[in-house]
């Protein structure tokens, strides 16, 4: 009897090739339009936009230059390793001469496709990624030879199952409690296992020298990233959306070239600081974003709203695993010995992370501290707590963080939304009211 029931059936129903192509190309065209539109809007708000931003505009086109490059490199024999979230050890991928790309999806249209097989209560980031897979939209997801899937939130855990129909999935099991000594031991073993898998796939052994080089490459990227962040601490010389875009391109760009380009951008911006050439008026309310990752291109709707509304706000910092948290922490190596480097890489991805998937009896205090520090460092006037429907972890932490922010006398606004463009008008009114309140507070 049991054999008649197909236990290993796939999640995603077979779709006709024609439907895939038609849907895919129409969504792709819409997406390219959204990308162009976003860049256009950024240019409009930031009148004398820095020249170095052009590079990032180009690389932000998900179906453009970078896709071509990866394809070319794949033909030469390089492997592409996708990852779904920031727990994946990039240094190890780089050390094996593979290309790391992030596969999370920010397309609204594909979220609707995902609705076909998943209830709408599910986090739209997951639904969107599934939808993108259905029509083979995401070039990075399609090009990856294997996908590293850290099982952080419930959505990603089950997403890994769905994607395993198509690609080899390497699970990583991050412990939910950071501080117990045995959890770190377990995580180090996970890192070791991933290292072996990467070595097996690429055929390149991760040597001491290679790993050291890749750690230093990432440290240089962190350095460039922090340089840009330091520029955002003063009066705005770069708008939040632009800086967010720069940070987000690091998820799929060639990291060495990205570092170089960010440094060029910083050179240009540092000159502007001297000349007091600001991107927005220095008195613009300074906003911090926190919560669910905002993925390029469609999720730009919220920062677009903030920076285009009247009164205008400027996003000076965010606390998102798609933005400022990606490159902030360096790998600190004590002894340049293989096992110590691996331990350092492992600890950097587990311990320094402020993902709400962690818990402890004191709450996720690392995240709270992160937010408090950012508010002080970047002189934040107000916090926008962005949560998409179905993002349970971020939504549940809101209450605790609101209490902390109330004590600091920092207004916080809980912005819940969906992967849809329909609520923009209504959201605009809410964001404008919040920014007006911030402006009034500054005037006082």
């Amino acid at each position, binding site marked *: 009897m049991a054999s008649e029931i197909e236990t290993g059936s796939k999640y995603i129903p077979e779709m006709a090739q024609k439907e895939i192509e038609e849907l895919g190309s129409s969504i792709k065209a819409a997406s390219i339009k959204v990308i162009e539109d976003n860049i256009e809007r950024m240019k409009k708000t930031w009148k004398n936009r820095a020249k170095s931003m052009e590079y990032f505009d180009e690389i932000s086109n998900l179906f453009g230059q970078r896709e071509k490059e990866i394809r070319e490199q794949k033909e030469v024999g390089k492997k592409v390793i996708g990852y779904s979230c920031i727990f994946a050890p990039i240094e190890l991928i780089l050390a094996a001469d593979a290309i790391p790309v992030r596969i999370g999806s920010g397309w609204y249209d594909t979220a609707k496709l995902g609705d076909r097989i998943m209830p709408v209560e599910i986090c739209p980031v997951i639904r969107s990624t599934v939808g993108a897979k259905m029509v083979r939209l995401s070039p990075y997801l399609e090009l990856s030879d294997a996908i590293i899937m850290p099982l952080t939130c419930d959505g990603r855990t089950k997403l890994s199952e769905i994607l395993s129909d198509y690609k080899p999935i390497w699970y990583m099991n991050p412990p939910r409690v*950071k501080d117990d*000594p045995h959890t*770190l031991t377990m995580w180090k073993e996970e890192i070791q296992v991933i290292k072996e898998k990467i070595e097996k796939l690429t055929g390149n052994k991760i040597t*001491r020298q290679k790993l050291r080089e890749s750690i230093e490459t990432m*440290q*240089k990227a*962190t*350095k460039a990233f*922090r340089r840009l962040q330091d520029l955002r601490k003063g009066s705005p010389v770069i708008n939040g959306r632009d800086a967010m875009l720069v940070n987000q391109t690091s998820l799929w760009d060639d990291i060495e070239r990205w570092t170089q380009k960010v440094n060029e951008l910083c050179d240009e911006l540092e000159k502007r600081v001297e000349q007091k050439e600001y991107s927005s008026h220095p008195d613009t309310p300074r906003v911090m974003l926190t919560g669910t990752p905002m993925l390029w291109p469609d999720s730009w709707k919220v920062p677009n709203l903030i920076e285009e509304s009247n009164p205008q706000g400027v996003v000076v910092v965010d606390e998102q695993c798609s933005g400022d948290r990606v490159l*902030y*922490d*360096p790998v*600190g190596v*004590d*002894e*340049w*010995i*293989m*096992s*110590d480097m691996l*331990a*350092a890489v492992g*600890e*950097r991805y587990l*311990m*320094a992370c*402020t993902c709400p998937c962690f818990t402890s009896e004191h709450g996720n205090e*690392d995240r709270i*501290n*992160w937010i*408090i*520090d950012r508010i*002080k460092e970047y002189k934040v006037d107000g916090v926008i707590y962005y949560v998409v429907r179905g993002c349970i972890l971020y939504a549940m932490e809101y209450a605790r963080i609101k209490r902390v922010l109330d004590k600091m006398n920092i207004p916080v606004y809980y912005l819940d939304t969906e992967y849809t463009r329909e609520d923009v008008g209504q959201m605009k009114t809410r964001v404008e009211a919040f920014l007006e309140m911030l402006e009034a507070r500054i005037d006082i």
Partner: protein
Amino acid sequence: MLEIIAETLRATIAVGLILAGILAILIWVRNLTRKLSALRLFIQIVSVAVIFLGLIIGPFGLDQWAYLGSAPKDVVIGTNILGRPYPDGLAVPTFACYYASGRTTTCVVWQLQSYIFPDYETSSVYLTTGLERLAIAFGLLVVMSLIFGRFLCGWICPFGLYMDLLTRLRKALKIRHWTLSERVNEGLRQARYLIIAAFLILSVILGMRAIAGIELISETELGRYLEIPFCQICPAKPLFVLAESGLGYMNLDYALSRTMGDFALTGWYLTSINIIILGVVTGGSFMVRRLWCRICPLGGLIALFSRVGPFKRLSLIKLTKVEEKCTKCGICKRVCPPQVTKVYEEKGGDVTASDCILCFRCVEMCPYEGCLKVEVAGKPIYKSKNWLKEEE
């Protein structure tokens, strides 16, 4: 009297010149030692040179023990206080071993144990009575603990340098260190105080004649039984004696002559227990960073007078942490030579632990600007910074 003044002047000039030279070298190497660990290694080497200055500048016209070869015994700094010999030098809470030649100061542990002996009480050569000197040694221990705390362990102690060199050797051989479990570390931490208690009680029993005029064990005098009990198990003594013998400053035959034999007659220069413990500690600290520091009773004494109760507030050097700047990345915990976890675990404020040797490796490696700070009398002198910037 004139002679003594001349001697003192000469000594002062020599020490002044040496200090000036060190200062000049320090300024010169400053560019090379922008990294704190390099600076620390340099200061450690300099302080070993200062502690064993007698080996470099010679006996300086003072008496020496003929049977120890040509090396000067004791005497450079603190010799002529008020015109009378004070041959052991001032007490410094580091392993500036008494048994080695040419040192300028003396380990406070030796002084605490030996000055209760009757020989010091009755001697006419010395400036003060044994108990007075005991008070001086103890006072210096408390004062220096409050001023420097375990900074002395991390930056001055010659035995610490020995362990650090072993660590550097291990790193060069590309072997990773072993970490001890928190339970073992806690055990070692507690054991320090047991050792302190044991050697102080033993010393008091052995020195009863001087203290109260009663002889608890007959014929308690120097050279018999477990006199100076701690030094007979200390790993630093054989290290310095063997090193100086090897360099020709000491006579190994003499040093070894009383090593074997009657167990109760534990010997003067080297004992079997000494050498065994040095072997164990050497092997252990090759694999475990700063192994001895975790059990060192001298470190325990310094910690007692700089990290416990009212002393904690008075101590000068402190390590502080700003809670919200910390992302708990765990780097401070991993890079710490004696595996202190308090810097990582404490939320913020004063995070100086009794195990911490104030080497500031955590401050050097912390990647968050201003998260960890070294404060001297409440004023920050060294802050963690974005160390990525330095590479330029």
